[in-house]
């Protein structure tokens, strides 16, 4: 066996992409200079990826030497890419955190129009989830506390207990 032992490194994520329902890029970032160095290669990959995933809702696919986990909602497709030997469950945790964060930002209204309206916050969230390929945080509530979304923007039901107590705290004391 040609040992697919994983090199111990924090650089786990090769790329993150959010595409619309025509396969066009809304946001995408690639973290490894050796993986799709030019925009043209990235676009081709995204088209390819979209064609293979937009019909079958199968959650995971291998493409061009990358493991891609994905999730879709209405007219949005979220992808997280890692090397073909990467622990798929770690990639999945990143994807979930991305999706949940976006969902909280958009108040569960996960669709293209809403993403574009809050594009600035979505960009910040993506930056808080992954920096240069290193997972910074994979817990969506913690990501939310880090992006500059003001607490009073989130409806009470979706706040964490900590956030609510904090809010009450600051009200009364």
């Amino acid at each position, binding site marked *: 066996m040609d040992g697919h032992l994983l090199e111990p490194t924090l650089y786990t994520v090769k790329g993150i992409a959010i595409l619309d329902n025509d396969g066009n890029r809304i946001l995408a970032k690639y973290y490894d200079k050796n993986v799709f160095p030019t*925009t043209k290669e990235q676009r081709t990959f995204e088209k390819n990826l979209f064609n293979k995933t937009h019909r079958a809702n*199968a959650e995971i696919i*291998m493409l061009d030497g990358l493991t891609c986990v994905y999730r879709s909602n209405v007219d949005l497709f979220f992808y997280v890419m890692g090397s073909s030997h990467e622990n798929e469950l770690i990639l999945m945790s990143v994807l979930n955190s991305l999706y949940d964060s976006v969902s909280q930002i958009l108040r569960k209204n996960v669709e293209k129009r809403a993403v574009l309206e809050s594009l600035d916050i979505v960009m910040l969230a993506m930056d808080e989830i992954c920096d240069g390929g290193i997972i910074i945080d994979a817990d969506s509530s913690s990501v939310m506390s880090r992006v500059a979304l003001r607490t009073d923007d989130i409806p009470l039901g979706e706040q964490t207990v900590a956030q609510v107590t904090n809010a009450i705290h600051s009200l009364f004391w």
Partner: protein
Amino acid sequence: MSSFKREKKEEEDGGGNPFQNIEKTTVLQEARTFNETPVNPRKCTHILTKILYLLNQGEQFGSTEATEAFFAMTKLFQSKDVILRRMVYLGIKELSSIADDVIIVTSSLTKDMTGKEDLYRAAAIRALCSITDSTMLQAIERYMKQAIVDRNPAVSSAALVSSLHMTKIAGDVVKRWVNEAQEAVNSDNIMVQYHALGVLYHIRKSDRLAVTKLVAKLTRMSLKSPYAVCMLIRITAKLLEEEGDSGSSNNHLFEFIDSCLRHKSEMVTYEAAHAIVNLKRTSSRELAPAISILQLFCSSPKPTLRFAAVRTLNQVAISHPAAVTACNIDLENLISDSNRSIATLAITTLLKTGGESSVERLMKQISMFVSEISDEFKVVVVQAIRALALKFPRKHSVLMNFLSAMLREEGGFDYKASIADTIITIIEDNPDAKETGLAHLCEFIEDCEHTSLAVRILHLLGKEGPRTKQPSRYIRFIYNRVLLEDPRFRAGAVSAMAQFGATCPDLLENIQVLLTRCQMDPDDEVRDRATYYSNILSRQDKSLYNNYIIEPMKISISALERSLQEYIQGDTEESFDIKSIPVVSPLAAEEIQTTAQKTDGMLSSTGPSKPVQASREENYIKELSNVPELQQLGPLFKSSDVVELTESETEFVVRCIKHSYTKHLVLQFNCTNTLSDLLLENVRVQVDPSEGYNIVKEIPCPKLPYNETGTSYIILQFPNDLSQSVGTFGAVLKFIAKDCDPTTGIPDTDEGYGDEYILEDLEVTPSDQIQRVSKVNWTAAWDEATEANNYSMMNIVFSLSSVSTLEEAIKNVVQYLGLQAAEHSDKVPEGKTVHTLLLAGVFRGGADILAQAKLVLSDTVTMELTVKATEESVAELIVFAIE
């Protein structure tokens, strides 16, 4: 209707997408708003978002444009709006690589990083590190150290992640933060712990002892973060793999990974199972718990878990098929999985683990499912079938029928090529399958739109067809191509026909008629080939056939191209000598193939295709051409594999490569210095050559700092008496050592002291002086050599007492002599006790070598070796060497 639809859609898009149709120039114009005071946060955030959106879409910004936008952006630090400030950080990060003078914002960022607003601090650190270079880093070092141990987890994580990024530009500075990182590992926050471990490992990874200590400490303290545990498993596995077997500490390490199988997070249990199955040392007993974890995952409702499990099982199936058999039922359930990747992996795994009896049943299942999957997966299935065919040669008829059915279906080039490849492999490996295989291929080229594939098949028909029972039937298929297809196709067909003419005397007349017809062809290449072959065939000379039709050119094409270019530029008075081109070894081609096959069974993890590799000699020629002394020695004949002259973990690591020239032997020593407090100068390897060798010149390596590899050379003249050219050389590494400061690498004093280091002995074998040559028709060449009078023959009988199987004996002989086995004679049919090995090669200087080894297996292996060579001394050398 459709146009209406599109209109409506466009309307929707336009209305919904405020970023549609924005232009770079307009946005950059708008960016001037940044200069207004007071800052309007909402407006500026929107403009900044547009800039970032454009960058993200891949829009190219010129350096001046970027710099202007960057400087306008710096004005936004006046605003206290949180979102705007955060967007500015993002902007700084994105533009830092394109804009000039980005360090201008250093002080603003440093202020934010040390300020009170927690929402700023973490992001400011990451932005700051993206604009910092190694000189600036010293200035912010103090703040970074503080940030790493900050109570706020976000700040601490940001600092750790940034320091890891910084190791690329200033590794030694980051190394000084090891104490802070150590402290951060104990953090309560799961991400901080993970990042700290990553940084700590990165700093220490070159120091084995430190890594061992780190692992020992952390495995005891039970980390909270599942990510950190995954990381720790990887570190531990790497440590285990490097140390090899034995050692009690290893058991402790393995126990740790094993205990992780019972972790509460699936991520960790999978990581542990993955590590266990991939460790070389794992025994089948230790494998069992890991396999049962994977088996559990197979029935998970989450596709990702099922995928992960099957992918790993697929890997295990190669090395431990028996262990996976336990999961067969689970795998069979997965064949109908809605995720096609999972289904394909499941079926290929089953193909690997299944017994001979289940082949037919599985093939039936596959044929139902194969039409539904995409080409990429079909290729994977085909590869699995190839492996199966090699494993169960008796099942070739079932598999062959299946493959030919697949060939007839629609499919892209890669898919068709992989099927054809598989059929070719089966034909080459299994003589019983040859006739049916060729028949399928003939049928395929009747209707094949991929020219390159068809030409390959034609070539194969030319090679294999003449040696079947009824060669004439293939000629019809081949000649049909000449009538129907495009020029490349026709040219290939002409070459294939010539092969028949050269090999089957009774068909010669008919072939000549066909070739004459081809000489009327409208295409130049086809006419040229037809004329060429027709002429040679009319001479009726066996040796001409052998050299110019049956055996292909064996020289390196890329070397030929280079030499011809040099020849054209230089003086063309003398005629070009084709002998000066190095012979290409068939090994190089094989190497390429094996690297390609490594991905076998993995899901099309090919990635972008790589350019064809140059042969090993090619690579070395480039390296050696930098040394002027080596230019006078003539063309490089052969380069050996890399020989280790030290253990891999000693103070100095020395590797040797032996380069043979016509009259000279060049020893290349690659030395690595692994001591951080020593600077080596005038590094050379002193060899004590065996009798007959003359040292012509030594080229030392002037300077060898820590962690670098330097090269020194020794040029030796081969002895005139060939029998002396095989021997053992003693070797000692000599150098002048200077103590130096480990961090800067500057020596403490100018005075060094001479020192030496004993290396392992270096052996020179016949294989260093022989290049492999692959003979398609070895028997013809052998017969020709018997008739010709310029060959001398030597014969010897002896017993190989150390080996107990024929395979082992063959491997040893081939390796030691460096000859190429011809006509697949290196494969022994199962159960045989007598075998004949056919070998061919060429000696430095150009003497051809043919050898035949008759092997008989009793308790030990007895071998009768007959060598024919165009020079007597060469034949003597080989016989002498094997004794």
